[in-house]
């Protein structure tokens, strides 16, 4: 029976391994293409902002001074949120953002490493003292979203959370200075 000759079997096993390697290669190429396609067409990228800030003085002046925290709508219509993550709270505790608009979230920490995510979205970043953590996103549904600290930062870590209030475009009305705050409920 020529079909059972060892050389033929070795060739068949080699062929199987090559076929497997080809299949794995196809999968890797397909997933990389999918990631590249969504990055280019749907704005899905890993946050990659590297920006230094002095953690000892960030609350005294500049964009993370108390009066600048919260949501600001620029003259060009851009929406920027600035918040401080500190032991054991986010300041401000509630962040108002419009639905369906690109929002820039900027966070800084004056003390230890914190982290945050916003439930139901892909926003997920670390907040490292000395750096500004910046994430762009677009909130698709209105409602209150939980934003907990997800990096253990001390004994009060479990109490450290904030609310992101996503407001419809028609209800999102910043004041004359371009500041927007959460609606009282």
């Amino acid at each position, binding site marked *: *029976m020529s*079909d*059972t*000759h*060892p050389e033929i*079997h070795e060739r*068949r*096993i080699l062929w*199987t391994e090559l*076929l*497997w390697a080809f*299949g794995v290669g196809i*999968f890797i190429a397909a*997933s990389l293409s*999918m990631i590249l396609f*969504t990055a280019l067409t*749907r*704005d*899905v*990228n*890993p*946050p*990659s902002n590297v920006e230094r800030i002095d953690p000892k003085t960030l609350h005294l002046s500049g964009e993370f001074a108390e009066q600048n925290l919260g949501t600001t709508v620029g003259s060009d219509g851009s929406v920027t949120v600035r918040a401080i993550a500190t032991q054991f709270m986010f300041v401000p505790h509630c962040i108002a953002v419009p639905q369906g608009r*690109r929002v820039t979230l900027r966070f800084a920490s004056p003390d230890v490493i914190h982290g945050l995510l916003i439930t*139901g*979205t*892909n*926003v*997920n970043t670390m907040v490292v003292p000395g750096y500004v953590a910046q*994430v*762009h*996103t*677009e*909130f*698709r549904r209105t409602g209150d979203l939980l934003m907990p600290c997800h990096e253990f930062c001390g004994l009060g870590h479990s109490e450290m959370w904030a609310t992101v209030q996503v407001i419809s475009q028609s209800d999102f009305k910043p004041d004359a200075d371009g500041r927007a705050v959460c609606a009282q409920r």
Partner: protein
Amino acid sequence: MPVDQPSAASDNLEVADEVTEPALAEVMRVVPLGAAVLAGSTVALLVLGYLAVYLLVFLPRGPVG
């Protein structure tokens, strides 16, 4: 077992199966196919799980960057 008794593994006749070349070839004709089916279906399930999470959970959560 007495300590001076040699291990059965020291004697090939005790541990090695007597397999002829044609019999081995006959087994090897089927085994790679079964391994490929098992590995293929397992990896396919993993890939489907990845795709389901990517397409049904990750992308609907909106842009990020």
